[in-house]
């Protein structure tokens, strides 16, 4: 599915969430396994399966292995019948995570309230202290397992500068911790870690040597400086920046008409770009 090219392509309108979902779906590889969290990752998995990776095997922490989820996506579903339809296996949480612990899971995906330069994530609280936080969030859920065990973790979050911080208020799920070698030194499985950060404006990777977050792509029409402005730390910038295509019609019609017609997940801030 290659996005349209041309001089006088029309302006396309989409939400920030739709762009993140499409951008994330394009990263997956076919015939690989994918640990799917609640919410946005569920929609990414369905979109990718329909358009790009028909043989991707989805695994859910509540014990569904390889479902062929039905659409429309049922709002709030978590292990409901359309979510876990025609699975290969129905099991439980300890066994579902065991696949990840033993190296069977290629990709994982999760969101967060804060991320730092090494891809460490906070989904626990903001401000105040642990006992009296200013804002308290649900916490790890299964996110810590996804970030610890999957070979490649994809982080998805809205591009708000305040989310990119020098120091997290709480480290919920590990990225590269304090830098090269720190994950392994702390006892986490070797060769794992954050691989991409998908935002509503850009795409980041991690430098192989320093493990620092590195800007590798920008939404078509945006300047890198617009993306980097206000971030709480200065990420590295790749010499060759990708131009990220805005959502293509096939992606948008699937998302809007088939997967999430109620707009529960895909709604968000309006954006536009020229194809």
């Amino acid at each position, binding site marked *: 599915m290659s996005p349209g090219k041309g001089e006088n392509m029309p302006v396309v309108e989409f939400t920030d969430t739709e762009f993140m979902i499409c951008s994330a779906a394009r990263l997956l590889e076919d015939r690989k396994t994918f640990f799917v969290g609640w919410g946005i990752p569920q929609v990414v998995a369905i979109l990718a399966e329909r358009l790009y990776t028909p043989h991707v095997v989805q695994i859910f*922490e509540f014990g569904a292995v390889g479902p062929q989820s039905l659409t429309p996506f049922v709002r709030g579903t978590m*292990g*409901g019948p359309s979510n876990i339809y025609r699975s290969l296996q129905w*099991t*439980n949480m300890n066994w579902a995570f065991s696949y990840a612990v033993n190296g069977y899971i290629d990709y994982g995906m999760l969101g967060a309230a804060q991320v730092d330069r090494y891809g460490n994530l906070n989904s*626990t609280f903001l401000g105040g202290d642990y006992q009296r936080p200013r804002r*308290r969030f649900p916490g*790890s859920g299964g996110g810590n397992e996804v970030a*610890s065990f999957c070979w490649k973790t994809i982080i998805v979050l809205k591009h708000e500068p305040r989310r990119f911080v020098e120091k997290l208020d709480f480290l919920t799920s590990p990225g590269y911790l304090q830098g090269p070698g720190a994950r392994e030194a*702390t006892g986490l499985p070797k060769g794992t870690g954050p691989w991409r950060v998908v935002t509503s404006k850009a795409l980041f990777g991690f430098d192989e040597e320093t493990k620092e977050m590195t800007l590798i792509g920008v939404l078509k029409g945006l300047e890198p400086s617009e993306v980097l402005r206000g971030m709480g730390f200065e990420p590295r910038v790749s010499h060759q920046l990708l131009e990220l295509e805005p959502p293509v019609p096939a992606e948008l019609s699937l998302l809007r008409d088939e997967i999430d017609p109620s707009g529960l997940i895909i709604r968000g801030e309006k954006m536009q770009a020229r194809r």
Partner: protein
Amino acid sequence: MPAETEVRFIHPDDFRRWVKENKTREAVDKLMTEREAVARFVPDGAYIANDFSSLTRGPQALIREIIRQRKRDLWVCAVFTIYDSPLLVGAGCCTRIDVGFLGYGNYIGRAVSTGKVKVFDYTNGVLASRLLAGARGITFIPVRNFLGTDGLRYSGAKVINDPFTGEPVCLVPALNPDVFLVHVHQADVHGNARVFGTNLFTLEGAMASKRVIVSAEEIIEPLEFRKDPARTTIPYFLVDAVVHSPFGAYPGGLPGRYELDLEYLDLLGAIQTDEEMEDYLEGHIYSIKDHLEFLQKKVGWPKLKELMRKAAIKEGYQ
């Protein structure tokens, strides 16, 4: 153990002795009402765990009964207790939560901020592992995650050098709840039980807990279990009480039987203030005698029929 934390822990020999002295091996009739099961087996101060979630096959009728009986000082293992943990805290039933996933909405977040409830942060997988250790009768289980996190400081986990690799490994303490609450598709009066679909830790939770309350959508004959024993999820001798609770997972869904009620879940998700919480509890729980009256007055047959009709997928649930 860091000063900031409290850990629920029972020596395995104490648990074994408790099982020997308190869990009957006789296949007796354990059928009782929600009211009796909760009154007998959920004391104030109890540590409770459940399966599966507020949205899917959760023991919602039992949770409402706990609130109705105004239990106090409960400690909750929160994995997918999305709407249950706010209600239990809002009703003043719960003062401590071991967090995998705290819960949904602003109410529960603010309850933490104001100190109404104390939290101890683990992860979903770590809590499932703790229950597995509790079920296996061992005092801890090693895990290769949770390392490098701030949760280590606010939980019962310890990091040691693995005697086999020489590398750091995280040990998490076994969890043996006082009470495990589970809603199942089918049970007999002795407590044999079947769940269909996926689960979080139905067997681990039941095996690890001192008391098990099963609420069942349907009561079937004991012989049915012997005809298809591979499908028995929980054997009767783990179970203390069997409650017949049709629509016991409402407003969540029961796979293959009825879908979740999104409108009602939105009503729960919208609760923000103590006043709104009190209004909900008064109108939907305290002023309602029992589960049957709740279904009659607060849900109604047309809605229940609609939710049954929406549960069109039957594969795997028969």
